[in-house]
């Protein structure tokens, strides 16, 4: 009875809280059109999808063997859509290893620049090569996930084969592991991706933002763990703290002072700060508006980088929590946002569009506005102070 009462309490609380959510009356029509290819459905291409596509394409060439042992640069070039210099080297040379419950974790590559760290960890079994190492079951349920999503250089297995079926066919057992890396004592804002090499080695790439380097180094907390198969919530972990040199990045500060309109609010983009690393360009934006109400409305908007020729988003990514109010002076309210553009910024001009988050996340850029619209801001980087 208590359980029923609790369920009812949860149900009614959630129902009331989400009572404002309404359906789309045209959804059925839209689904039919999308299925017939009559409307373009924006596909948010997942990293995993890109990885699979990349691998499928590449496996048809003689380059397949070169895809083993991916480091950061290989990942960025092949999956993260970023263009980085051919001579990029992370410079990482430490030998870092942790053994947990029969699984050996090894840092294959690591790189820190500006305020971000990227770390590649590989995990494989210590004693045998018949165990497939998988990411946490929350993200990789082997009964649902397809082998082709995770395993590199997979030949002769159809796309519908699940990891469980694949493991059974190959006589492999399965273990789920956990990998994370962040700066010690900072809020962990981490994203990542995983793949499997040679059936049994898991490779996990994690990145964390908002480092605060001291004396040119950052203290990284590398945490790894193994889930206990008999109890899916039980995780045995070990942590290693190590110092990683941070590549110094010279920030480029640009005074912008351009006005745009977002809904009923007039916004002034005061300045942007660019942190161009070899892998990406970190962008910070500082802007203001008048009135608290305006500022709160602006939390629903973001300045987005636009490719001026295609009018599409540039290769953007972020672990940021989105825009935030930084402070007030009388009526004036100051806001801040941050994100990254994949690859180095090679153009002299950065085009931005201020768009409601819900609109761009669903519809993409606003092509009807055109580049001449006031909501496109042109910033000439060479005009810096």
């Amino acid at each position, binding site marked *: 009875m*208590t*359980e029923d*009462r*609790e*369920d009812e*309490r*949860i*149900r*009614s*609380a*959630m*129902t*009331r*809280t*989400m*009572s*404002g*959510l*309404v*359906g*789309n009356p045209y*959804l*059925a029509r*839209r*689904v*039919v059109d*999308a*299925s017939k290819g009559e409307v373009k*459905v*924006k596909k*948010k*291409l*997942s*990293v*995993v999808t*890109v990885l699979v596509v990349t691998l499928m394409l590449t496996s048809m060439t003689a380059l397949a063997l070169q895809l083993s042992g991916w480091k950061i640069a290989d990942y960025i070039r092949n999956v*993260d859509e970023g263009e980085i210099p051919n001579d990029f080297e992370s410079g990482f040379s430490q030998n870092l290893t942790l053994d947990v419950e029969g699984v050996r974790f090894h840092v294959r590559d690591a790189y820190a620049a500006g305020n971000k760290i990227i770390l590649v960890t590989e995990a494989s079994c210590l004693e045998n090569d018949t165990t497939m190492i998988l990411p946490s*079951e*929350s*993200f990789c*349920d082997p*009964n*649902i996930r397809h082998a082709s999503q995770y395993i590199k250089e997979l030949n002769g297995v159809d796309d519908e084969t699940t990891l469980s079926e694949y493991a059974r066919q190959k006589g492999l057992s399965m273990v789920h592991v956990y990998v994370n890396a962040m700066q010690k004592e900072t809020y962990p804002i981490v*994203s990542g*991706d995983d793949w499997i090499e040679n059936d049994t080695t898991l490779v996990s790439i994690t990145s964390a933002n908002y480092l605060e380097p001291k004396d040119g180094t950052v203290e990284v907390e590398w945490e790894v763990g193994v889930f206990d198969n008999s109890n*899916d*919530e039980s995780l045995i972990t070990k942590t290693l703290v190590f110092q990683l040199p941070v590549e110094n990045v010279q920030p480029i500060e640009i005074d912008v002072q351009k006005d745009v309109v977002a809904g009923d609010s007039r916004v002034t983009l005061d300045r942007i700060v660019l942190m161009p690393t070899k892998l990406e360009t970190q962008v910070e934006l500082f802007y203001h508006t008048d009135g608290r109400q305006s500022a709160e409305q602006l939390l*629903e908007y973001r300045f987005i980088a636009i490719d001026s020729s295609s009018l599409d988003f540039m290769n*953007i*990514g*972020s*672990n940021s*929590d*989105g825009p935030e109010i930084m402070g007030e002076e009388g009526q004036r309210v100051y806001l801040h946002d941050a*994100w990254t553009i994949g690859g180095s910024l090679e153009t002299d001009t950065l085009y931005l569009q201020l768009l409601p*988050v*819900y*609109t761009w*996340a*669903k519809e993409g850029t606003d092509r009807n506005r055109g580049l001449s619209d006031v909501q496109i801001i042109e910033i000439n980087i060479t005009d810096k102070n």
Partner: protein
Amino acid sequence: MSTVVAKGPAITRDEKLEELVDRYQISLLKVCFTFLHDRSLAEDAVQDTFIKAYQSLDYFQGNSSEKTWIFRIAMNTCRDMLRSRWFRFVDRRVDLSRLPEQTVQMEDGDKEIMESVMALPVKLREVILLCSFEGMTTYEAAESLEITQQAVSSRLKRAKEKLRKELKEKGCDLS
């Protein structure tokens, strides 16, 4: 035009889709929002769910119920979105102010319960959504999540314990 054999007269695929959308759109939207913490992504997830359902209508054998089938597609769609690069650019804080204004009066503790559910680990959130919110049996939830009934029960127990503990710290309870 192909037809779908259902109980009663055969209907076209498009009619069947309309029926599914009418029946499940709002429920799926709420479940996906709680899962993804973002209204726009939730709308995308619902649309993707119906596209996948529409494309596989002919293969739906009726071995599971229609509801568990459509929720299984939705759960997998949400899980996929959690992994995507795009997801990194979305604000993932538990922030209920981003929901549209409620059309019914909220009661004391509603906000805290919703926030606590949204903050649960993914595995625990899934079972609360399906069992407590959607009213599925452990058997139905197990089918939707493609896990055992035992796993559903065990996760549900842990989820409730966690919710009770967190709500107690916020000065609320589930009763």
